[in-house]
């Protein structure tokens, strides 16, 4: 496939930007809530059931989490693929590593997406 490596590289760079934004939001909302409260003036405990329920019911949160999962997996596994193929640079090793990374990525993505969407469906009020 022509230019496949450049296309993967470009997607990896774009995923890095997306991860920065979405992960930044996740970190601010979930783990730096006290710090955020200083900025926005109010604080809610993100792990309280009411808050969890709100996020679960929100289609925006669900889609964002799936998007974050996909881009983080691609970015991380692209980096792992690069490290491994630089260490083992033969063609056969490259095919094996590519297959392994794609397999791990697809399995983890499907697992995470099923979990996220299932929770969304459970929390949505019928």
């Amino acid at each position, binding site marked *: 496939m*022509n*230019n496949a490596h*450049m296309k993967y590289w470009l997607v990896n760079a774009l995923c890095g930007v997306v991860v920065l934004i979405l992960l930044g939001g996740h970190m601010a909302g979930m783990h730096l809530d006290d710090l955020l409260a200083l900025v926005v003036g109010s604080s809610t405990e993100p792990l309280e059931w009411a808050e969890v329920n709100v996020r679960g019911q929100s289609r925006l949160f669900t889609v964002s989490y799936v998007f974050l999962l996909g881009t983080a997996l691609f970015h991380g596994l692209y980096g792992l693929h*690069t490290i491994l*193929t*630089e260490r083992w*640079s033969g063609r056969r090793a490259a095919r094996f590593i590519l297959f392994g990374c794609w397999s791990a990525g697809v399995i983890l993505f499907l697992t995470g997406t099923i979990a996220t969407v299932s929770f969304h469906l459970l929390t949505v009020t019928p």
Partner: protein
Amino acid sequence: MSKDKKTAFSIKRFLPESDSAPHWERYDIETEPGMTVLDGLHRIREQIDATLSWRYSCRMGVCGSCAMIINGKPGLACNTQVHDISEVHVRLEPVWNFSVVKDLVTDLSPMFDQHRHLKPWVIRSDTEALQNTQAELIQSPAALVEYLQFSYCIKCAACVAACPTVAIDPVFAGPMPLTAAHRYNADSRDDGFDQRKKALTEHHGVSHCHYAGECSRVCPKGVDPAKAIQLMKRDLVADLFRSAPRTPAAPASQVHFDRQLVNEELRPPDFTVPRKSAK
């Protein structure tokens, strides 16, 4: 200013006929201000050990032959002054990432094989420039500036020695070949982008540069290979979204020589003919 003093040169030696592995040898020589590392090597060879081997040629930083590791950093022996490095101890070893032939001499052929693979010459889509010897490939000063910096490369291999990706990935092209490829891709007279693209974007191509920047840090000619590689990534990404074929380079220009005028200009003056007086 420092006076003459003894400086210890520790050199990583390897004699393939007798050594199983490289080893360090120390030579103490008189050094003075203004003396280069290359001068030191000559002094060692002349006064102490005539078996010491290294490459050199121009002695003035334009050929790239004398690249070596000087106190842990790739550089040229001919334009590195001993007292700028250390008046006490200078450590010399062959450039990293290449197999050693003998002492400070390494086998650079893998780098030049990569270089050749990326077609480092002007490629034309027309044949007029080849068929018409009177033709010129006109280039504006602005077009020259696009690649001039990258044409200063002297192929010394200091950048390849410093590259951490080359250190672990023997298939990666390396900074010098990639910079040479960009030098020609950026040349307005060249039409070889599509031919080089395949080699650049294949397995372990330009996308494996992680922008460590060590190549630019050690380059003795200010070429900035890291910049060249990032510019090339930009061009390759832009090419992914290109829908129309690339604009070919300007055709060769016909330069008309007025042979009569040239002959008259070159003819020596005839002193028998009276000069016309100025009015």
